[in-house]
C-alpha cells in the first residue's frame, strides 16, 4: 500500500523534484558501482575458505546479489561494467544455465598460480591468465579463438584443461572454470537442497529468516547459513514476505529442487 503511494507521489511530484534530481543524478552512478563492489565483498566474507583448504578463491553467485539489491537491471549493468574493467570474472557453473559464479580477478589469479606452483603447466597457465584478465570477459572459448587470437597450440590447450582452468563444453569449445571447483559445486547443491528441505518441512512451508539462521545445520550444509539464504532468496526459490515479526521465507511450489 505504502509503495503504491510512493509511486503515485513520484509521478505527481515531478515538477518540484526536478531541480534537486539533476544534482543527485551525477553522483549516483559512481556510487552505484561502489555499492555492488561492497556488497560483493560482504558476500565473499560469508564464503568458508577453510572448507577447501584455502585452494579456492572466494566465490559468490550472481543471484545472491539480487537478494541484497532490489533493482536487478541495475545490478546486471554494474556487474557488466566491473567485468569490462577487468576487476571481476564470471563463470558458468554446470548445474543451472542461470547460475553464474563471480570471483575477483586478483583472487582468482593468486589462487590459480598458488595451485599451479611446482607443476609443469605453470607457464601455460600464466600466459593464459595474462591474456584473460585485463582484456577478455568471455565465459567460453572455442578452438578458433584459442588458436588464432590467443596463439595457443593444441598441446597447450590440453595442459590448460589438465590444470582445471578450462573445462570441456563440447567438441572444440571450452568453458572458463575455477580449478578444484567440483567440490564447491557438490557441497553447494547439497547444502541448497538441505536448506530448502528445512523450509519445506516447516509448518505451512514457511519460516522466519532469523529462525532459519539460528537453526542447527546438518552435516549436509557445509557453508554458512546466510550464504545459502542469499542464494535461495536471490534465485527466487523461496518467496520473501515482510511481516511484523520480520522477514518470512515461504517455499515456492513448482520448484524442481
Amino acid at each position, binding site marked *: 500500500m505504502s509503495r*503504491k503511494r510512493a509511486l503515485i507521489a513520484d509521478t505527481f511530484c515531478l515538477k518540484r523534484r526536478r531541480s534537486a534530481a539533476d544534482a543527485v543524478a551525477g553522483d549516483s552512478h559512481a556510487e552505484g558501482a561502489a555499492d555492488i563492489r561492497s556488497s560483493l565483498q560482504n558476500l565473499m566474507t560469508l564464503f568458508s575458505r577453510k572448507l577447501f583448504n584455502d585452494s579456492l578463491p572466494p566465490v559468490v553467485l550472481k543471484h545472491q546479489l539480487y537478494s541484497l539489491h532490489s533493482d536487478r537491471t541495475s545490478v546486471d549493468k554494474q556487474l557488466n561494467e566491473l567485468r569490462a574493467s577487468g576487476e571481476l570474472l564470471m563463470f558458468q557453473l554446470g548445474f543451472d544455465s542461470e547460475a553464474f559464479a563471480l570471483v575477483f580477478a586478483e583472487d582468482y589469479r593468486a589462487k590459480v598460480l598458488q595451485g599451479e606452483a611446482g607443476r609443469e603447466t605453470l607457464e601455460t597457465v600464466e600466459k593464459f591468465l595474462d591474456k584473460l584478465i585485463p582484456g577478455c570477459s568471455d565465459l*567460453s*572459448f572455442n578452438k578458433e579463438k584459442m588458436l588464432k587470437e590467443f596463439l595457443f597450440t593444441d598441446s597447450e590447450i590440453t595442459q590448460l584443461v589438465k590444470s582445471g582452468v578450462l573445462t570441456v563444453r563440447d567438441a572444440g569449445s571450452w568453458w572458463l572454470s575455477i580449478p578444484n571447483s567440483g567440490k564447491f559445486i557438490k557441497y553447494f547443491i547439497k547444502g541448497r537442497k538441505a536448506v530448502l528441505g528445512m523450509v519445506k518441512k516447516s509448518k505451512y512451508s514457511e519460516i522466519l529468516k532469523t529462525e532459519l539462521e539460528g537453526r542447527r545445520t546438518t552435516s549436509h550444509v557445509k557453508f554458512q547459513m546466510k550464504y545459502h539464504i542469499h542464494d535461495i532468496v536471490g534465485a527466487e526459490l523461496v518467496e520473501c514476505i515482510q511481516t511484523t515479526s520480520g522477514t518470512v521465507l515461504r517455499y515456492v511450489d513448482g520448484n524442481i529442487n
Partner: protein
Amino acid sequence: MLSFLYARQSGLDDPVRLRRAESTRRVLSLELNHNRDVARVHGNGINTLDIEVIDGRYMLSGGSDGVIVIYDLENNSKKLQYSCKTICTVGRSSRHVHKFSVETVQWYPHDTGMFVSSSFDKTMKVWDTETLKPAEEFQFDGNVYCHHMSPVARKHSLIAVGTKDPKVQLCDLKSGSRIHILQGHRGEILSVRWSPRYEHILATASTDSRVRVWDVRRASGSLFTLDQQNGDKSKASSEAVNTAHNGRANGLCFTADGLHLLTTGTDDRMRLWNSATGENTLVNYGKVVNESRKGLKFTVSRGCSPEFVFVPCGTSVAVYGLHSGELITMLRGHYNNVDCCEFHPDYQEVYSGGKDCNILAWVPVLRQPDIEDEENNSKRGGTQAAVNPAFEDAWSSDEG
C-alpha cells in the same frame, strides 16, 4: 494534480503530460471494485479476451467450452453498480459453435461487424456479428494455438495463424486463400503478433525456443531470430545458442508504439527486445512464473509515463514496470489460474479471465477527497489540525 492543471492551462506544460501523469496514477491504483462486475456466462475456463479498438465498448471472450460471448462494457445505467451484460453469445446450442476449446478471438480491427476465432477443433472461423454465423471457415491440419490480424494494415488483410505445424500460415481474408507460408521454425507455433507500427512485420514464438521476426513481403526466410545473449556465443551452452528463451517461447506482446517486443518463456523469464534490431535490452524482471503449455496472453499499458506490463502469473496478474523491470504489484482475486488479460486504454482498466470461469475487472480507485485536504493543511503551515487533539489517541494511525 492542481499544479499540473494550472501548468496545462497556462501553457507551461504539454497537454499530453497531464494525461500521462493521470493515466499512470490510475494504473498504479488498480483494484477490484465491488461496483464493477462482468456477467458470468462461461461454464469452463476463459482462454482469451479482446476489446475492440474503435470505441472500447465491446469485449469478446472465448472459453474452453467453445463458447464465444460478447459483452457491453459501457455503463449507461445511471447507477454506480454495474454488471457488464452479455449482448449475444455463440453458445453450445448454436449450429456453428466450435467443437473444442476456443484459443484466440479477435475483433476485426476496423469495425465490429466481424470477428475471427480459432480453436482446438483445427478450424478458424470468421463470424458475422449481426447473424452470428461464420462467413468463412479455414481448416487446418493441427490444433490452432493462436491467430492475429494486423491492427494497422491498409494494404493487406492477412491473418497469421500459428498451429501445431512448424509452418506459419497466412490466410487472406479478402480472397480466402492460404497459400502464403512462412518456414523456419522447428516446433509448434505458440504465439503470433503483427507489429502495431509496420503492417508487414510479424513476430512468431515457438516451442523450439526461438522467436522469429518476419517481413511478409520477403520471399526468403525470417528477418532475424531473437538471441538472448545478443550474439555473444560464449555465455550459453551450445544447444541454447541463438534462442530467445531456455524453454518454450510462449508469449508475445509488442508495446503500443511497436518499438519494443516482450516475450515470455517457460524458463520463467520475460525479456524485452528492441524490435528493429532484435537486441535484448537485458531488463531483468526476475522470475515470471510460466507453466503454460499453450500460449500465454499478456498485455502492455498504453498512454502511461512509465509503461506497465500485465502478465498472468499463476492465480494472479503481475504488474511490472516495462523498462525498470521492477514488480509493482500483484493483482490477486482469481480463484484459479489466470489465462489472459486485456488493458482498456481509455479507462485504464484491466480485464482478466481464467480457469475459474470469471472475468474480473480491475478498476482504478477513485480519488479520496481527504488527501487534498491534507495537502492544503500542510501548505497553510499546519496551523489547523484536521482532528481535535482531544480525540487523538496514541495507537491508531491514518495510514491505510
